[in-house]
């Protein structure tokens, strides 16, 4: 459960990352495709080369959704409701591994790369909890 302190830390982190938001999404996706090749199976229709417009575009979408989640930490279920439907009924991405483990790990690596020392243990902890909470909401309607 996200404490008030966790929420503050997540918002702080998001602010620090704002100038580079556009890059964060694409970088996380690229790292995910390189590190966990099985995730590419969900994107047979994409050009997955480094720097591809599709990865950039999709990265922006992912980051925008996360930004929306950050603005609605008190009400994640409602804020992510449509995305939750999309993942459950359309995309049907394997929930526990994909969202919560693989993409979360890659997002955190990108944040750590950009924030360095500023990715403190406290922020790391809050972000890990936040991404778990997001993944849980996205998986809510799977069955």
């Amino acid at each position, binding site marked *: 459960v996200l404490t008030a302190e966790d929420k503050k830390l997540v918002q702080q982190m998001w602010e620090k990352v704002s100038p580079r938001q556009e890059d964060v999404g694409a*970088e996380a996706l*690229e*790292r995910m495709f*390189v*590190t*966990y090749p099985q995730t590419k199976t969900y994107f047979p229709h994409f050009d997955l080369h480094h720097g591809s417009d599709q990865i950039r575009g999709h990265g922006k979408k992912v980051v925008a959704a996360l930004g929306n989640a950050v603005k609605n930490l008190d009400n994640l279920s409602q804020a992510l409701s449509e995305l939750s439907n999309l993942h459950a009924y359309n995309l049907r991405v394997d929930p526990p591994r994909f969202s919560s483990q693989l993409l979360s*790990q*890659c997002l*955190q*690596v*990108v944040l*750590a*790369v*950009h*924030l*360095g*020392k500023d*990715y403190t*243990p*406290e922020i*790391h*902890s809050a972000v*890990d909890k936040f991404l778990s909470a997001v993944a849980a909401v996205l998986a809510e309607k799977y069955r």
Partner: protein
Amino acid sequence: MVHWSAEEKQLISSVWGKVNVEECGAEALARLLIVYPWTQRFFDNFGNLSSPTAIIGNPKVRAHGKKVLTSFGDAIKNLENLKATYSKLSELHCDKLHVDPENFRLLGDILIIVLAAHFGKDFTPSCQATWQKLVGVVAHALAHKYH
């Protein structure tokens, strides 16, 4: 047998060459105990683990972190022979320490994040991919003797 390409071996050794084992080990273990607090169950005799600050400053955490990462260095020196290298350690973690191997995966992921924070952009996607493979293989070797 896991296969390591020349590029992967290079990525492993070039990163490892720049790692301060004591600092990095301490940081990784501290973060494990902070981010996944249930892992504290294995460290009842470590004293004060009541807050992130306490954990980071705890000398037993630092010492044990260094021990763990030093052992990781042994893995790196024995990439072709990991299961044998970790045979005794695996038995120890199963029979004496009773550690669920899932925790090895958690620590591995945390180590990657510590490296990323440390090396910044130099921790490229290929670097991350190689190191995730490495921590996965190490975790597997450590779990190998479980029964």
